[in-house]
């Protein structure tokens, strides 16, 4: 039995304590936190308000027809967003076409097939891709990617697929296709990491059941795991789309910044984000500025809708947390 020492005289006497106390500290603390939390929706409200008031002149002038207006001519003071919208959608769509198969392939490989030792390092490397700033992608795109495309890839495509209108026409270098490729590289890490989370959430029993029935490992993936994870993966893809829509720097450095709609993918193009980046500081006149703000407003609206849809889909598949931003 352990002996317990007798209380020593150094112990403080028990003071007659009252039961009263102030709650000021708690109230102040909660107040500070509430203020911080309030700041978020308040700021967002201001954002919408400022975009709206900034764009007002153009909204009043063009209304919703702005979306179908096909001329964007600052000199003639004629503004229509159609080329920009088409450019944005086209570049994002192409980027998805390239990025989704790659990302899914990598995600499936990492969750189902890769030897354990390889999984973490590869995932880490892909995460690094996401940390590279957009402007650095643009820099690399201009001086490394475009020359390669111009010299080898584009002529090859024109030679082999030239019967399609997409691969006809003069090759300048900066083009819709070049921008789409760099976009694909940029959104790939996001689609991959979200898909990976979604795939990891699929219960192992699904795969085991398929294998037990004699499926090959690939068939187990296609028949049991992918259907289960389908809405989550679609969510990941839409999340990637959301990012592609708003990407600015790399796109504006590679796309050629010409606002015309052309069938050829070798031709330069323009996107909503790129036009804002290029023309904002040199905008001539209030209508020009307001039109650019209108474009920003539209871009904002589109990304909110797309991201909202993505989040709903991701939540539905075994995800306790929605994939929100780049967390730790």
């Amino acid at each position, binding site marked *: 039995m352990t002996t317990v020492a007798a209380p020593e005289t150094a112990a403080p006497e028990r003071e007659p304590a009252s039961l009263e106390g102030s709650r000021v*500290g708690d109230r102040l*603390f*909660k107040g500070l*936190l509430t*203020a*911080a*939390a309030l*700041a*978020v929706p308040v*700021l*967002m409200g*201001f954002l919408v308000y400022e*975009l709206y*008031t900034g764009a007002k002149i153009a909204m009043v002038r063009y209304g919703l027809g702005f979306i179908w207006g096909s001329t964007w001519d600052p000199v003639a003071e004629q503004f229509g967003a159609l080329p920009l919208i088409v450019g944005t959608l086209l570049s994002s769509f192409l980027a998805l076409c390239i990025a989704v*198969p*790659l990302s899914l*392939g*990598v995600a499936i*490989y990492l969750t189902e097939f890769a030897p354990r030792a390889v999984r973490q390092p590869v995932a880490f490397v*892909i995460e690094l*891709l996401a*940390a*590279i*700033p*957009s*402007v*650095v992608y*643009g*820099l*690399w795109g201009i*001086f*490394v990617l475009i020359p390669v495309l111009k010299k080898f890839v584009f002529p090859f495509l024109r030679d082999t697929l030239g019967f399609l209108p997409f691969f006809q026409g003069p090759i300048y270098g900066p083009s819709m296709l070049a921008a789409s490729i760099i976009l694909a*590289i940029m959104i*790939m890490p996001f689609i991959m990491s979200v898909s990976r989370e979604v795939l990891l959430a699929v219960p192992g029993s699904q795969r085991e059941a398929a294998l037990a029935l004699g499926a090959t*490992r*690939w*068939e187990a993936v296609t028949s049991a795991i992918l259907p289960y994870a389908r809405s989550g993966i679609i969510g990941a893809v839409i999340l990637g789309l959301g990012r592609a829509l*708003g*990407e*600015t720097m790399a796109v504006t450095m590679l796309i050629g910044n010409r606002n015309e709609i052309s069938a050829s993918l070798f031709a330069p193009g323009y996107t909503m*984000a790129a036009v*804002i*980046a290029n023309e*904002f*500081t040199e905008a001539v006149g209030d209508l020009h500025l307001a039109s*650019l*703000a209108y474009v*920003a407003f539209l*871009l904002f609206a589109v*990304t*909110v809708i797309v*991201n909202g849809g993505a*989040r709903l889909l991701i939540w539905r598949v075994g995800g306790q*947390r*929605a994939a*929100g*931003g*780049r*967390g*730790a």
Partner: protein
Amino acid sequence: MNRRVLRRWVSNAMVGLMIAAVVTAVLPLLFILLDLLLKGAGSLSFDFFTRMPVPAGETGGGVAHAIVGTLIIVGIASLIGLPLGIGAGIFCAEYPGNRLATTTRFVADVMNGTPSIVVGVFAWALIVTRTKQFSALAGSCALAMLMVPMVMRTTEELVKLVPHSLREAALALGYSRWRTSLAIVLRTALPGIVTGSLLAVARVAGETAPLLFTALGSQFMNFNVTEPMAALPLTVFNYAIGPYEEWHQLAWATALVLILVVLVLSIAARLATRRRFGING
């Protein structure tokens, strides 16, 4: 061909394709890093870090103004964005059912998906039009707005991870609620919050678009935050699209510096989670 063998063959072929995908995915990263090193490292010198840019056409000069500019702009952005984001995150974690908490969480998600150029336009409309001039402060505000939702989400998740039993033990000891939140809960979640914060700072340090019409950029060294200021990403952009070959060289070197800054911050972020006393022991 035997059907079983065919299926097996397909399975293996798909695995081969997937490995090809992995290689294709990883290749750009390797090339980018390699090119940065090859093309940029040559221009790195002591002068590069300490000198100012020289007139177009001349060689030499440096990006000291941009390094200082990035430090100031990102520094102020962190001073604004981190407390707001962490505070909002703690609020949402401590009072989860609260209507403000659910609203804030939802809005933060929307903010996270907002293109950074739109945030730049907002900062321009809010500040630049009213003060009638471009300023580093406006740039900091734009960057801060990007940081807040990032930091808020990570903070909230980490604070939620702190076991309820710890809070109870502190409260039972006579700790007030605010002291429990700060001294016990926050302290336990601190390594993760530091990581999340550093990652947000790293991410924001590389942003160009929000600075395009707020901080605007500058060729000069400037410590006045109410005036335009240079920043590393802006410098990369301007040099890259400029007409001079020397500028292109400088663009590579500046990009290398930028990547180093981002990498250092990211690595520091991961290191922070390996502290002595943490939830993981």
